[in-house]
């Protein structure tokens, strides 16, 4: 459990402390040092405006991590609400909500988000909401399944027999028991959110320049891939390290049979 969490904690600390630890301002243009290869002064090199790539990667981490974590929060809360309602009420409510879940699962996620962000031109906060609303289905299914099996268990039956109301049953008995499964699916949503944000920004419809995100740094690196490959390496490696740590943490939480 420890290694991936330590890596994640370091990444988050670096993102929070970016203004303090970054060697330069992320937007500082230095026309004397355009497109420089990595060196002692600029560890990850400089881009087409002479901006320091390390500084931009650190500041980009703030956006990328925030979008990943917050979009997973949106996805988790909506997924728990929808899945919980479907599993608790059953019947027609369950039917309608689960058909809606099926419909959302049958729409290709990235193309749908690309259309939405191309037409809506979202701010970072709206981007969080859009990515979250495209990712609640897995959590909803897991929570619904847990609620359905728990509903017939003895401890829920006896709580109901003792006169516990709906709210008490859900909050005190059902939610805590479904928490582990829900947390695993929300963890996966964090990794997915980071990948989706970077893909959207890579296609020029996510986080818009000059604000740095890992995805839009890769978008800008594409034009000069042949001559300045370092511009493409650093942001991608940071995405990979982040999503890999989140996925490993999720696997351990799920108690994969190792």
């Amino acid at each position: 459990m420890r290694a991936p969490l330590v890596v994640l904690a370091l990444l988050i600390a670096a993102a929070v402390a970016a203004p303090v630890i970054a060697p330069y301002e992320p937007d500082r243009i230095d026309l004397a040092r355009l497109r420089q290869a990595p060196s002692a002064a600029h560890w990850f090199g400089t881009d087409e405006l002479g901006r320091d790539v390390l500084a931009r990667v650190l500041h980009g981490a703030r956006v990328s991590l925030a979008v990943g974590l917050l979009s997973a929060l949106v996805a988790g809360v909506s997924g728990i609400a929808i899945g919980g309602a479907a599993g608790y009420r059953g019947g027609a409510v369950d039917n309608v909500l689960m058909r809606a879940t099926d419909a959302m699962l049958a729409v290709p996620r990235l193309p749908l988000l690309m259309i939405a962000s191309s037409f809506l031109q979202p701010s970072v906060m709206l981007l969080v909401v859009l990515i979250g609303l495209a990712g609640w289905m897995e959590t909803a299914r897991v929570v619904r399944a847990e609620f359905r099996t728990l509903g017939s268990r003895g401890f829920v039956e006896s709580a109901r027999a003792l006169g516990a109301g709906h709210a008490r049953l859900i909050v005190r008995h059902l939610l805590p028991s479904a928490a582990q499964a829900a947390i695993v699916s929300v963890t996966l949503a964090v990794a997915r959110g980071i990948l989706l944000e970077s893909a959207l920004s890579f296609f020029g419809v996510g986080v818009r320049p000059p604000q740095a995100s890992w995805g839009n740094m890769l978008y800008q690196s594409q034009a000069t891939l042949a001559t300045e490959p370092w511009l493409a390496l650093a942001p991608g490696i940071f995405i990979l390290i982040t999503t890999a740590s989140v996925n490993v943490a999720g696997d351990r939480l799920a108690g994969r049979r190792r």
Partner: protein
Amino acid sequence: MGNQVARFLARRSLQALPLLFVISVLVFLLIHAAPGGPLAIYLANPNVRPEDIERLRRALGLDRPLWVQYWSWLTAFARGDWGYSFSDGRPVIARIAERLPATLELAAVSLAGALLVTLPAGVAAGVRRGRWVDRATSALATAGISLPAFWFGLVLQIVFATGLGWLPSSGRSTPGADDFGDHVSHLVLPALVLIVVQAAAWSRYLRGSVIDTLAEPFVAAARARGIPRRQVLVRHVLRNAIGPVLAVVMVDAALLVSGAVVTESVFAWPGIGSLFTEALARRDYTVLMALLMLTSTAIVVLNLVADLAHALVDPRVALT
């Protein structure tokens, strides 16, 4: 069995129609609810006067109530009339059809390649669980699912195209020199990206499924009867373990045959996926609508195929 399959197909097709209807409303509203709607791209263009936009709006029928527009789109779409591309005026169907061969070629090669990697890797990891084979494949698989596909594509271009100069960085063929070898060399890098990404996800599922199946009593029974190990693995374990994995494989297959947006775009592969990003850049919404419906239909249909195949390989699974 035949009768049962027919009834299953009929019922599931009937269930799929309202699903596709909901999806089409969702996508239609999304595009039309945006500021400026389908003509948003002209609003930002200083050379297009407001009265021109108004004329376009009327000519294209965009001034009618939203539900009237939706209904005329839906009835035409159901009849096979997918409208005309906003960017070049050609029928949407023709634009998709000309991109289809490239997409199907890439999809077929990637799916076959990913299966060839997944089957041995997933089974070996599941059978030798906790041993070094398992730890190595599981680590690689986790790296694979964490990898942003577009960045992996860029890295492959840096290394094999601009760095070593072994392979072309984009396109489907070299103009004037498009023999078989040239064709294959263009296919290698995009196919590699898709193979790695799919095989990583699938082998994780297959590993878990193999572990579940190994714990089943019928596997112990087969072993007790003295059936050779290899035969137990292939006939008993793999056959039953593959069922649950099919659902994941089929959704990915649906996404590939309807155009791998990211990979095709990074490698400028002239398929449906690139058509999507081109249409998005020009806000060509008739093309976008058609492509999203195409992908959703492919997902729904291949989901059905997966359930059918699952029931066929595993007699314990009922067709519901």
